[in-house]
């Protein structure tokens, strides 16, 4: 049972979160220009590493935000939690 440190809300139980798969899969700018194989690669292919994994979670039962997590898929230890481009906490206002 993980405890995930939501970048907004702080440490919360895994059950408040929803896993959202591999992070940083960018939707192609112009899908129409891709071959079927390139499109399939974006759609379906995953790195699925044994070890360090960049992934997304959503604090669905908290602040509702998606954020990135680096987690080891073997030890389940969480190395870091972050939101790309997020203004630092506190100076948001």
């Amino acid at each position, binding site marked *: 049972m993980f405890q995930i440190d939501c970048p907004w809300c702080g440490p919360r139980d895994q059950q408040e979160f929803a896993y959202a798969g591999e992070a940083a899969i960018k939707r192609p700018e112009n899908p129409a220009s891709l071959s079927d194989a390139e499109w399939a690669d974006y759609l379906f292919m995953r790195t699925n590493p044994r070890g360090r994994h960049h992934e997304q979670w959503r604090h669905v039962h908290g*602040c509702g935000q998606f954020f990135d997590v680096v987690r080891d898929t073997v030890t389940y230890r969480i190395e870091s939690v972050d939101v790309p481009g997020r203004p630092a*906490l506190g100076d948001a206002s």
Partner: protein
Amino acid sequence: MSEIKIESPLVDQVEAVRGNSAPAKVGVRMTEHPFLGQIVLRGKSSDTAFTAACAGVLGCEVPTTPNTYAEGQGVVIAWMGPTEWLVLVDGESTPAWLSALRGALADVHAGVLDTSGGQTLISLEGPAALDVLAKGSTLDLHPRVAPTGFCTRSLLAKSAMFVRVVEAGQRFEIVVRRSFADYLWQWLVDAGGEYGLAIQPAESTLVLAGLQASAPPKTATGA
């Protein structure tokens, strides 16, 4: 036309409406506060036009620190997410607050949504209140971690909830969505039984920690 009937989500829970006969030993008191004004505010805290307009109406700053709420005159505003707040006011003053907020935010990228019919508020008070919640919530509501002024969205049993610490370790308010209210109420009754659960009749006013009776909003600037 006949009189307009208003019904809380807990209308079918007789004890929620009328209260129960209190047990000999009371560990927790539970009360529903139906028909409050529950307004969802959407906006960006980085947008000063938004925060200023809100502060102008609410009489307090919009809390931008996660897991906190602020109180103005007759109003609680709680952080729910980086672009979302819950505003709690008395039922009767809701239309006034709504139009004040809408007016003030007319030209801002913001949203003011009335969700008063979509949720209800239940307060739990007493030495066992924390234990009752702990049976279904993984939050650490110990006063060291969740002092007065703490609030958050989370889960309680199998329902989403919003919880606000009104008095650290002693008094909590939870907001539950309408369609889950029956379930959660029954869950609370079941979980609280062991401690001695006194159910007080529904009370349709907002009980603010350290606040005077609700005051109407300042007249909206733009409305």
